[in-house]
C-alpha cells in the first residue's frame, strides 16, 4: 500500500472527527475549530491524491483553501466576538433570535 493511502485514511478520520465535533459540540468556538479541522482534512486529501497521481493541481488547490479558510476564520472570529459580547454566551444553541 502506498504511503499516500495512509494519508487519505488519516484525512478521512480527521474529517469524521471534525464532522462529529461540528454536530455534537455546543461551544461555538469548538464548532468553529471543528470546521477548520474538516477543512484541513480536505487539504490533506488534496495533497495525498496529488502525490498519488503525480498532479500539481492538488498541491496548488490547498493554497486556495488555506487562503479562504484564513479569510473565513477572520470573519468568523469577528462574528463570534460580537455574539459573545452581546449575548454573554458562547452556546451555539442559544443563538436563535431569527426563529423567535
Amino acid at each position: 500500500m502506498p504511503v499516500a493511502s495512509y494519508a487519505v485514511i488519516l484525512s478521512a478520520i480527521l474529517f469524521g472527527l471534525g464532522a462529529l465535533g461540528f454536530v455534537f459540540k455546543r461551544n461555538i468556538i469548538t464548532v468553529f475549530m471543528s470546521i477548520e479541522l474538516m477543512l484541513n482534512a480536505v487539504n490533506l486529501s488534496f495533497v495525498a491524491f496529488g502525490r498519488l497521481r503525480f498532479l500539481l493541481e492538488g498541491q496548488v488547490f490547498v493554497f486556495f483553501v488555506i487562503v479562504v479558510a484564513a479569510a473565513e476564520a477572520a470573519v468568523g472570529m469577528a462574528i463570534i466576538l460580537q455574539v459573545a459580547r452581546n449575548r454573554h454566551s458562547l452556546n451555539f444553541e442559544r443563538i436563535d433570535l431569527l426563529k423567535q
Partner: protein
Amino acid sequence: MMSVLDNAWIIPALPLAGAAVNGIFGRGFSKKTVNAVAVGSTTLAFLSTLALVAEFWKLPETQIPVIRDFFPWMVAGSLRVDFAVQVDQLTIIMLLVVTGVGWLIHIYSTGYMAHEGGYYRFFAYMNLFMFFMLVLVMGASYALLFVGWEGVGLCSYLLIGFFFLKKSASDAGKKAFVVNRVGDFGFLLGLFLMFRTFGTMDIHTVLTKAQTMPVETAGIGTLTAICLFLFVGAAGKSAQVPLYVWLPDAMEGPTPVSALIHAATMVTAGVYMVARSSTLYAHAPIAMETVAVIGCLTAFFAATIGLVQTDIKRVLAYSTVSQLGYMFLACGVGAFSAGIFHLMTHAFFKALLFLAAGSVIHAMGGEQDMRNMGGLRGPIRVTFLTMLAATLAISGCPGFAGFFSKDEILWESFSSPYGNWALWFVGTFTALLTAFYMFRLVFLTFYGTPRYDEHHVHVHESPKSMLIPLVVLALLSLGGGWMAAPALFGGKNYFDDFLSPVFQHAEEIRSQMPAGGSHEMEHLLMAVAITGALIGFLVAWWMYVRSPKTADELEAKMPGPHSVLLHKYYVDELYDAVIVHPMQWISTNILWKGVDAAGIDGLVNGVGKLTRGVGQETRQVQSGNGRSYASLLVAGAAVILVLFLWLGH
C-alpha cells in the same frame, strides 16, 4: 339649397346633440338654458322633418324608398351593417308622430317639471329618447332598428326610475328593463334566423328577397319562425300578453314620460316593426293569426283590468295596453295601414289623455287617486275640455279620431280573410269597455262633489306652457281621423292610399284570399260598435253620476270578480310565484351559495389553504436550531457520498 333627404342623419342627430349638451354641461345651466337646448333641438328636429316631408312629396314614386348610406358601422365576415336611413311613407308617418308629439310634450314638460329636481337630467334623457326613437324609425337595417329599440328601452328605464330615491320607482324601472329583456331575446333570435336565411339584415333587401318565397300555409317554416320571434320582441316592447306587466308599473315615471314613451311613441315600436315587416308576415299566416289573437286578447284583458283601477294614470296605462292590442289586431288581420292609422290617432289622444291627467295631478298637488278627486270640471276648465275631447276620441264617438281608426280595425277584423266574427266580437265588446272606463275616469275626476280636502288642496289651472300642447293635441284628436274618413262613404281613404306602397306586397297576397263583407255590412257593424260605446257611456254615467252608490253596491255584491280585476287577475302574483321566486331561490341557494361561495370561492380559498398547509408542515424543518442544520448537512453529504460510491461501481 342643401337637401334634407340627403342629410337625413341630421334629424336624429339634433336631439342627440341636445342630450349631450344638457347631459354633460346641464348641471350648471339655468332652467331657461336647459329649456332652450332641449326644446330648441326638438323644434329643429320637427322643422327638419317637415322639410323632409316637403322634399319627399315631390319625389317620383320610383325613387321610394329613399335609402341613404352614411358610413359602415359593422363589417365582420359576410355581416355588414351600415349606418343608413330609409325614408318611405311609413317612415314619414312615424317621423311626424315622433317629432311632432315629442315636441309638444317637451314644451309641456317645461311647465310640468318646473318644480322638480334633476331638471337637466330629465331633459337630457328625453332628448336621448328622441334620438333613439328616430334611429328606430329611420334605420334601414334591422340591426340599426334594434339599436334604436334597445336605446329607447334604456331611456324608458332611466325615466321610469327618474325619481330613483323612491323604491317603487326604481323597482318599476328594473321590472320594465327585465321584462323587455325577455322580449328582446326573442327579437335577437329572430334577427339571427333572418341573417341566416337572407344573409343580410338590411330591411329593403330582406323584404325583397322574401317576396319570392312561398307563402307558408302548411306549417311553421323559416319565415313563420322569424315572424314569431320578432313578435316576441314586439310583445315585450309594446306590452302585449303575456309581457304587458311592466307598462302599468312604468307609470311611476313623471307624467310627460308616460305620455311620450309609454303611450305615444316607444310602446308603438312593436306595431311599427310588425308593419315594417308586413311582407314577411304576409308569408306567414300562422304568425299573422298569432298576432291577431294576442292583440285581441290583450285588448280585452287590459280593458277589463282598467274598469276598476283607481289611480288615474293606471287606468290610462291599461287603456294604452288595450289600444296597443287593437293595433296588433289590425296588423294580424292584414290591415297594416289601419294599425298604423290607429297608432297615429292613439298617439294624439293618448298623449293628450296623459298630459291632461298630468295637468289634473299638477292641479291637485300630486294626488293621483281618483277617489280623492271629483268636481274638478269648474276649476280647471281647459284641462277638462281637452280631456273630454280625448275621451270622446278614444271611446269611438263618431267624428273624433279614434272612431275612424277603431272602426276600420273592427271592420277589418270581421271582413279580412284573416279575420273572423270572434275577433270582431271581442274587439267590439272591448270598445264598450273602453267607453265605460274612460267615462268612469272623466266622471270620477271632473263630476260630482269634491272629495278632496278643499282647505288644503289649492286647485289651480296649469301654466300656458302646459295648456297649449293640450289644446293642439285636442285639435288633432278632433280632426286627425278625417284623413281616412271618406272611406266610410265609399270614397277615398287618403291615409290608406298614402301608405299603400309600403304594404303593397302584403296586400297582394291578402287580395288573393276570399274576403267577406259588403258596404251595408260595414255600416251595420259600425252601428253596433257605436251602440256599444254608447252603452258603455250610459252605464258609466248611471254608475258614477246619476246614482254614485251603484258602483259601491255592485262592488259589495260581487267581491270576487271585483278583487280579481283589482288585483289584475293576480298575474303579477303568478309571475312572482312561478318565475321570480324560483329564480331567487336558484340564485340564492344554487348560484350564490353553491356555485359562487362553495365552488369558485372554494377553489380560490382551497389553493390558498393548500399552500399554507404545506408551508405549515415544511417549516418544521427550519427549526432555527444550528445543530440540527449541521446534522442534516452532514447526513446529506453522507448520503451523497454513499450514492456516489454505490453508483460509481
